[in-house]
């Protein structure tokens, strides 16, 4: 019985991967090296985690364009990349047709064996302007966390705060005329309740830091997570605007994300779910 459910589930996931509008060649690889097989394998694992471990609730998925370029811009939540993985899974599972969100990831990820391979094959590239521009020009869906590594370094008490945003994503959105779809990711800070970031240990391991939890290792707890997508923001300009203009646009995006976080938390409390570890 369980086996037949698992087979049915994976069949559905495989069909979703097959429906991706990516130009896979005869070897199932697209021009960026994204591999149908690797995306399929990753989705099988992520879908189980998404549905049964984190029981992710996704709201506002209709705000993501069904095709064409777009930037998913949201808050970091959780000491490791649970947020990125679940956002990626949400666009694969909740959209019809599914889309692959391509994250702009930290540089260290591509230095290590296995992580480099899987990141590349699932379309998660180093956060370089060259990558972002090219992917947007190719009408891909980008996933950006403008808080960067400082965002994932938030400690438990600060889990719903936003640290400073970078400004490069706005210039890129203007240059490529891409809509920004803001999103709020709720619950990552409770799933990985970071009490201390070990920067020295991180340096030793070649990563920015190692988040430590009350139970030491940053293994995520089975907290229910939520993703709230907001209406697209479209800014007009060339990307050559003065810094204060760009900073104004950044503030608008940040404000929108903060609003989505607050609304998500309020709705959650209203539903009486506050005892389930989240807010």
């Amino acid at each position, binding site marked *: 019985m369980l086996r037949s459910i698992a087979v049915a589930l994976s069949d559905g996931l495989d069909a979703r991967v097959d429906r991706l509008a990516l130009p896979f*060649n005869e070897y199932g690889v697209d021009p960026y*090296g994204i591999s149908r097989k690797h995306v399929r394998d990753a989705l099988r694992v992520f879908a189980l985690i998404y549905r049964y471990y984190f029981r992710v609730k996704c709201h506002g998925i209709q705000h993501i364009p069904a095709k064409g370029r777009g930037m998913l811009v949201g808050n970091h939540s959780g000491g490791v990349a649970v947020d990125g993985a679940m956002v990626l899974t949400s666009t694969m599972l909740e959209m019809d047709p599914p889309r692959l969100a391509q994250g702009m990831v930290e540089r260290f990820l591509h230095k290590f064996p296995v992580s480099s391979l899987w990141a590349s094959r699932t379309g998660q590239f180093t956060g370089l302007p060259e*990558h972002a521009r090219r992917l947007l020009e190719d009408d891909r869906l980008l996933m950006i966390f403008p808080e960067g590594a400082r965002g994932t370094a938030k400690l438990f008490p600060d889990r719903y705060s936003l640290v400073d945003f970078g400004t490069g994503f706005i210039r890129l959105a203007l240059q490529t005329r891409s809509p920004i779809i803001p999103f709020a990711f709720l619950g990552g800070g409770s799933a990985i309740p970071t009490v201390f970031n070990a920067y020295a240990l991180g340096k030793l391991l070649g990563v920015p830091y190692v988040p430590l939890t009350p139970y030491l290792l940053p293994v995520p707890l089975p907290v229910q997570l939520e993703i709230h997508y907001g209406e697209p923001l479209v800014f007009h300009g060339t990307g050559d605007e003065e810094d204060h203009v760009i900073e104004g646009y950044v503030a608008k995006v940040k404000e929108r994300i903060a609003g989505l976080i607050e609304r998500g938390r309020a709705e959650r409390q209203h539903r009486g779910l506050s005892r389930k570890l989240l807010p």
Partner: protein
Amino acid sequence: MRVLIPGISGGIARKLALRLKHAGHEVAGVDVRPWETAREAGIEVFRGDVRKRAAEDVFRRWRPEAVVHMATVTAFTVPGAERGRINLDGTKAVFDHCATHGVKQLLFVGRHTFYGAAPDSPLYHSEDEPPRALEAIPELADLVASDLYAATALWRMPSLTTAVLRLPYTLGEPGTGTLATFLKGRRVPLVLGFDPLFHVLQEEDVVTALHLALEKQLRGIFNVAGPPPIPLSVIVRETGRTVVPLPAPVLSFLMGRAGLPRLSTGALDHLRYPIVVDNRRFLEATGFEYKHSVADTLRIYREAAPVPVSSGVL
């Protein structure tokens, strides 16, 4: 047009010479290596080193209008200081002769490895990027330096129409070149946990690209590529070989031993990180279209260089 090809005895250079001859050009070459059957095809090969006086005499007497400089070597084929002499001094000599003897057009055939393989570099490299290969792979320094030297001709020698072409790995028959040599054995090592994208271009398509660059009288720096890149593991499998994933330190120790191909230390990065090039500038300038898909290219190589019966310990 009278076309002189330094390095004419190489696999691709021969094919280019024959293609140009067939297209009605007069073709000659300079090489230290012989090409016994060249005369039968109506192609004159002057035996000698491009750095020596005899080569200058060829420029003086034969009076080429165009030169395709293919007399460069990779770290994989020639070790040490000799490589620097061939790549750097040879390139300088070719440009000097072109300037002295009124050559109108020059194609410098460079490599896409110019950009280097690094975990934090962009996946698609454009022509405007600096040579990161210098930082990571000192064995490529002389090739990179000759590429840069060739590029300086764009402003140093304005009367010479210079094009610097950066070509990807080529595969074909009889299977010469860096990648072909790397794939020769039954088992091909990969770095465990990595599988970089590789550009491969079939040799006939390389010849087409060079021919087009010559006919269109390209000026500038251009990346040349064919089909979209594919993972190295696919190349290995589709050429009938077996992938042997090894941890990087083990692979570094075993290179050149136990039947594994010899690679320079820095070249190990090429087995970890991709070097993929953006060829849009070349496509716009020439209208180049590749004829051979990746599958075709790999099949042709597999048939031309079948898997050897046994190869060392592995």
